[in-house]
């Protein structure tokens, strides 16, 4: 099983189309690194993206430098995965 320790899901609220395209650019800047759980669609909809722990510093710097407001939706993905796995094992028992 892949381990996602320290990976976070950031929720970004793009104000306008320009900011949305900055987010789309991120996929090109960080190929196969940034995983859009909710892709850049329209300003009224949040963008959720999973960022590996190794890329967090860069990605947050990119967002902040472009004035993109974000919050941390999931602080550590692996914690939720461990809970999910434990719940499945418990249910099986």
């Amino acid at each position, binding site marked *: *099983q*892949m381990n*996602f320790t320290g990976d976070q*899901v950031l929720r970004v609220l793009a104000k306008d189309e320009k900011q949305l395209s900055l987010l789309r650019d991120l*996929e090109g800047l960080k*190929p*196969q690194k940034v*995983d*859009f*759980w*909710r*892709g*850049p*669609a*329209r300003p009224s*909809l949040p963008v*959720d993206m*999973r960022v590996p722990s190794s890329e967090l510093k860069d990605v947050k710097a990119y967002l902040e430098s472009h004035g993109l407001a974000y919050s941390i*939706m*999931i602080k550590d*993905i692996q914690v*939720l*995965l461990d*809970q*999910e796995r434990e*719940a*499945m094992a418990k*249910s*099986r028992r």
Partner: protein
Amino acid sequence: LERSTSSFSYSSYHTLEEIYSWMDNFVTEHSDIVSKIQIGHSFENRSILVLKFSTGGSQRPAIWMDTGIHSREWVTHATGIWTAKKIVSEYGEDRILTNILMSMDIFMEIVSNPDGFAFTHSMNRLWRKNKSNRRGIFCIGVDLNRNWRSGFGGNGSNDNPCSETYRGPYPHSEPEVAAIVDFITAHGNIKTLISIHSYSQMLMYPYGHLLEPVSNQEELYNLAKDAAQALYEVHGIKYIYGSVSSTLYMASGITVDWAYDNGIKYSFSFELRDTGRYGFLLPATEIIPTAQEVWMAIRTIMKHTLNHLY
């Protein structure tokens, strides 16, 4: 493995083996109304299975439902399982569902992407695509919701095999998609298609690959509105609704567009809840509330189909 569905936990996530074992028990226990059909094999040669709910007749108008085309969306498979159980337990009790099943059949494909789903349990919980790999292509997997022959290759899909929305080398290149296409085309009397995804709490209808409205846009909008209202009344979860391209984004080669272009007037896709906190990692405690609310929306759509057969 479980020997009967009575000890099966509908409020937990399960592996592919557990789901396929549940299916066998479920069909055995409800053989008067449920049967299992194999419609094909996945890229890695796993069976692709469909549950058929029928009270008789032949070639009846029918409803198609699929869950799990994106493998990491675990709450959709779990919702499909709960919905199957709901159908057999409500038949004979719920007048609307009973009327539906007296005139129509229901087909439900619970694991539309078995290879990807198995991979989420074995290697990568966040895997989305199928597992196809082709000579000379560096990355694995095709996004099965971009591989349909409707607007294939347009905006909102990707020709980069490493992208999460890679559309595949050509329409219906993927056995998981071709199996559904062949089944629905051969059946020839499917009147409604409901494809269930997660997450973001949306109920959408065609088109994704075009901005122009479909011919019965007003009917679909009003039906989506009624369905979203029926869903909201269960647990107060709000869904937005509209066409894919106007509600979410341009997406080409998607299931609902192909269905609509092939004569299925009532073609919808759901994006189930996450309540803004968990994304694809919705806790198992939310499986049943999610399934309960989406059942009321599905029931609304099926009732409309029954009253407006075409």
